[in-house]
């Protein structure tokens, strides 16, 4: 039999060439990442080197009396936690000495301790002291859990990450407690609280005495705004997500979901405008009340971190709601039915089973939303202001890291001068913070996706 069709000449090479071409396109992702890191790193290093040339790299004074301060107390608590952790890992038999009463207090006592911890955020002045208290309580519960599992042979692998993390915290707080007067490039940037990169100098191009680069004032405002935003967005967003996935009728969901997506698609500069003309005046009214009652010492300004926190909260609300809803939807229906079949009411099912099952998915959404809030620029620039001074009074204008960058480049910025370099140092810090948040969030998310 003779074939009448002429076969297509099969060229062998193209397939490989296509593969190579496509590989190169995908390599561009690596190039971009390297480009970003290289740019930021390169300019940031130049920045630090320039300061170090005049003020040295890092200096501090040692002051052992600082152990008696709040931070010193925090360091002590960290040490206590570390010891507890170490004993429970390596000298387990000592645990038997601790009485059961201490490890398993009645539930009301536990609950009140948790509540006290949450309230303490507001009351305690030193963040480190609070963090150390939280760590201590966490280790206490961890040890209690280990004690419960004792003898069951389920704690075969020792988890060293907790020990290492506690060790780092201990070292850090001890360092903070016993040293003061940080100087030099790194000491100034990471430990000081005054950000006056322009200074009052005759020649603004080069470094002069009056310039200060304590990025903490920007960082703290950023955190104020980001956590303030979470404070608004998480209860509302998660509540909205739960309502949509557990209670709402399919028709309501089909209306609300696209609306949420629409909200998520509104540009941040529009949110900024919204904050400027609407939220700002409202916050000022609130601030006036606080001022007349003497709760704050200065009259409120229309640009302030609360304004920023609310508007960023509104911005990330759809993100939290939408991702949490997805997480809740991914939980198999059988769990819901199983709980209801035991005679649980809907809210009991939701709070005790569904939330617990979707917890890591919701957590991931919160972490990613936090990263988004930290990196948010335009809305914050328009809402928070341009005064790079951190005050605990949240009714006064301040400046976040992103807003500083946006404001600084807004003017004409000559290449290579110190002001130009500062934005890269700040940008690198910002990049590291958001990147680690994203890595964490995506890791939690993929672990969650694997679970269901």
């Amino acid at each position, binding site marked *: 039999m003779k074939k009448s069709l002429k076969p297509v000449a*099969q060229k062998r090479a*193209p397939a490989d060439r296509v*593969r190579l071409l*496509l*590989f190169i*396109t*995908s390599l561009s*992702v*690596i190039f*971009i*990442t390297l480009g*970003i890191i290289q*740019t*930021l790193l390169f300019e940031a290093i130049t920045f630090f080197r320039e300061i170090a040339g005049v003020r040295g790299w890092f200096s501090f004074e040692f002051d052992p009396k600082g152990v008696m301060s709040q931070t010193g107390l925090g360091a002590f608590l960290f040490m206590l936690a570390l010891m507890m952790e170490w004993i429970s890992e390596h000298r387990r038999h000592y645990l038997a000495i601790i009485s059961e009463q201490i490890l398993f207090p009645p539930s009301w006592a536990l609950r009140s301790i948790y509540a006290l911890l949450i309230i303490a955020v507001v009351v305690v002045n030193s963040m480190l002291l609070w963090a150390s208290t939280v760590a201590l309580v966490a280790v206490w519960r961890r040890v209690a859990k280990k004690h419960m599992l004792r003898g069951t042979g389920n704690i075969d692998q020792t988890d060293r990450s907790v020990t290492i993390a506690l060790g780092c915290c201990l070292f850090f707080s001890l360092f903070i407690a016993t040293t003061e007067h940080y100087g030099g490039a790194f000491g100034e940037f990471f430990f000081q609280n005054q950000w006056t990169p322009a200074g009052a100098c005759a020649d603004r191009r080069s470094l002069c005495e009056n310039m200060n680069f304590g990025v903490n004032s920007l960082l703290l405002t950023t955190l104020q705004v980001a956590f303030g935003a979470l404070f608004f967005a998480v209860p509302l*967003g998660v*509540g*909205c997500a739960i309502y*949509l996935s*557990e*209670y709402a009728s399919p028709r309501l969901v089909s209306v*609300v979901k696209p*609306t949420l997506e*629409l*909200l998520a*698609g*509104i*540009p941040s*500069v*529009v*949110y900024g*405008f*919204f904050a400027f*003309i*609407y939220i700002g005046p409202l916050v000022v009214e609130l601030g006036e009340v606080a001022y007349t009652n003497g709760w704050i010492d200065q009259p409120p300004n229309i640009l302030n971190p609360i304004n920023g926190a609310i508007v960023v909260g*509104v911005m990330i*609300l*759809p993100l939290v*709601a939408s991702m949490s809803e997805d997480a809740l939807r991914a939980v198999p229906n059988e769990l819901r039915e199983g709980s209801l079949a035991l005679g649980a*009411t*809907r*809210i*009991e099912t*939701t709070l005790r089973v569904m939330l617990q099952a979707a917890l890591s998915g919701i957590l991931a959404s919160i972490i*990613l939303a936090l990263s*988004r809030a930290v*990196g948010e*620029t335009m809305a914050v*620039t*328009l809402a928070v202001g341009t005064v790079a001074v951190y005050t605990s009074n949240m009714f006064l204008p301040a400046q976040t890291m992103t807003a500083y*960058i*946006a404001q600084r*480049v807004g003017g004409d910025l000559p*290449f290579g001068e110190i002001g130009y370099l500062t*934005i*890269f140092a700040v*940008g690198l810090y910002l*990049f590291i913070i*958001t990147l680690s948040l*994203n890595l964490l969030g*995506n890791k939690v998310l993929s672990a969650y996706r694997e679970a269901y």
Partner: protein
Amino acid sequence: MKKDIDTLKKRSRRRRDVVEQAGSASLALSGLVGMFFLVVLVWQIAIPTFIDGENGEISAASEFIPISDYVLEWDHPNVNEQGDLKTEPIVLTIKWEGQIGAQTHDLEIVVTANRGEKEDVQISEEGLSTTSIEVGKKTKFYLKSVLDVPVSVEQRSGPVPAADASGNPHVSSFVVSGDVAVLISNGSAVFEPLEMAGWTSLLVLTFIVSRPTERRLAPLVHCYGRERQIRGIILLLAIFTIVIGQTTLSAFLGGLCWLLFGVALLRTIEGMERLQNQGRSLTEVKRLKHSISDREGLLLWSRMLLVSACFFIPLDIDIPFLTERYQDIFQPYASGIRSAFFGTVWVMSIAMLVSMPISIGAAIYLEEYAAPTRTTKLIQALVTNLAGVPSIVFGMFGLAIFVKQGGIGLGLGPSILAAGLTMGVMAMPIIVLASQEALRSVPRSLRESAYGVGCTQWQVVKDHVLPSAMPGIMTGSILAMSRIMGEAAPLVVVGAAALVLFDPEPLAALTGGNLNFTVIPIQIYFWTSEPEHAWHSMAAAASIALILLLIAMNSIAIVLRQHFRKRLNS
């Protein structure tokens, strides 16, 4: 029978019920609060845009535009050197509804040759501070009002102020206080017969093609064999429409209507002929529907064009806000977002041109070719995490790589090209993720059946996987585009300008032209930063325009997705 378990202390049912009620109510409430924010947002942005007021009147209801000052300026003196009037005297009539009833005052203005000489007029409850003033030529002066009611200003006689470029004889057209008529004015009555004809023809043909009957198709039979002539005539018509209409938006849309009409007409005739060559009659309308090639697609595009052109051709709505450029700092209401709009279009075009091929290529490699090696995993992780990097960091990347000269910088300057490249880099991870999602959703069986007939890997990708993943990829790209369209932060860093008086030049960085450019979000940002309240309502109007643009793009994405899905399923 008594159960063992009933010896335990029971939980109160009433309390559980109360918790249930309260819990579900509070959850619903949190959902409502989210919705409430949307309503407030839109409402608050809409108020300053659509305040009602006529010809220079200020609506007292608009809180965001307190009574502003009227700024006037004449180019030429109306008196000679001796002080005699050369023209009619300039007289303004100023009216308001005061607490003691309606008041009308006249203000006589003498424009002298002494540039810089000026005198501002205070308007208060007692009346005007003076009834006649002398001002220099080309000098701005103010009518300052301290009233809390609207003030209207009309010119009774004399030459019009210089700043009024359109030749409109009323002062009111450029008063600072909220004149909405300037923002959206209806029907400038310049009737373009050609545009109208193009639009109507397309409408009629679309109707015929979507519901063909024998009677409706009968006139088309005459066109058999004249395809070449028809093609020529319609091309000419399209060109004429655009040329005669002086390349305005409506002329452009009219030309587009003609072109689409031509394509649809030729396809229809071709289909009818094919049908008759097969020996079938035109009465078999169902057959005809299948014999016109890509009828669904034609209908989709012409319907979209008809709807969008309907505002500009038959209704002839003129929105100066969209078609005017930025005028100057004293005339917010005469300014528009034309330059910003073109800036956005150019930046988006360059961004998409750069990022789409690369991103889609990367997505294909990652989904179809890559073995799960360490490199692949790294790239995947980078893509996922790059999508979450703050936009301003991309801006700094653009600043160092594209804008600045020296080091690894390309030295494009703060130009559209640099901005487009920066935005393209920013869009990349988003498009890669969306494309990967789309490629992943192509069923395995499709690939296997293609391999089964002996396709090479590239043939499988090119002929089978890509076409069925294309709608997803397109939708993802449009959504990515709409997301970066609203981004202002990277462009602030790259160096978009606050004030652009001319349409931007896309390739200025290479040809050495004017680098200045701006985009709509940047315009909103700078307008919001202005202290003058009138600019805030411009920012509001620009916000509304931006949101509408984004909604339109998202709708197109949705329509395209539906269309392709229908085609794939059928």
